[in-house]
């Protein structure tokens, strides 16, 4: 744990470096998904930007921003895989299996990313603890309501 603590002292720098990696991944995925269709590329970029902003919100921590990035990238990956599969013609059973496996994997990653953000949000929420007689009631303050 002390070693972990020490490693995480540079948390912001670590998140920053992973964020840079995420930016590189985004460029690769985007170029591959849109090819030379510039209008499509611009539309997808804007959609991803909006999605990221919606997911992260205004007062997101660096970790939440990173997770919002991750969800956006996973979303792009799922849709790219589905689009490519739908556009493929004359596939053999083996190829169909490959594409289904790829779509399933991308979908699993997408759901896992969403679940992680939800977990981080849930655990970071400030909780108000009220004790009524012997029963303990936890009232979690909702954000933005």
């Amino acid at each position, binding site marked *: 744990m002390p070693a*972990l603590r020490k*490693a995480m002292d540079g948390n912001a720098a670590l998140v920053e470096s992973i964020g840079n*990696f995420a930016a590189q991944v985004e460029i690769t995925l985007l170029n591959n998904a849109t090819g030379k269709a510039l209008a499509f590329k611009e539309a997808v970029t804007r959609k991803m930007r909006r999605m990221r902003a919606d997911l992260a919100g205004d007062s997101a921590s660096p*970790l939440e921003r990173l997770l919002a990035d991750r969800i956006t990238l996973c979303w792009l990956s799922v849709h790219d895989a589905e689009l490519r599969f739908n556009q493929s013609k004359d596939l053999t059973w083996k190829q169909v299996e490959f594409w289904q496996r790829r779509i399933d994997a991308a979908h699993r990653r997408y759901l896992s990313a969403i679940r992680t953000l939800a977990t981080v949000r849930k655990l970071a929420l400030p909780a108000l603890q009220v004790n009524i007689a012997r029963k303990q009631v936890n009232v979690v303050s909702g954000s933005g309501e």
Partner: protein
Amino acid sequence: MGWERGRYYTRSRKVNGRVVREYVGAGLGGILAAQLDAEEREQRAVDREAARVAEEEMTALDQPLVELNALADRLIRAALLIAGYQQHKRGEWRKKRVREQQPAGTDKQGRPLGTGSSGGER
């Protein structure tokens, strides 16, 4: 598929799980059928290779995202552990229970040792 005794061309195919060899022809008809089959085989091999390359490209394309996910997972895990959470049976993250430290020279109730009737209660 092949030339039976070098005289006539035959094709093999599966019918209900059994290999059935059918006679195609001898002479020019056999030669033409053999050439068509060879071209078809070649085309299938080319298609298979193209599909294999495409699959490899797709897998390579997914790799950075898989790495990013693994990195982010590790980071989040570390952050949660530091914040005092532990994962319960690979599922839910729960706050770790911290046992209060018992001051030296006192019993579990906080009384100085040797003064009370510890262990006498029934």
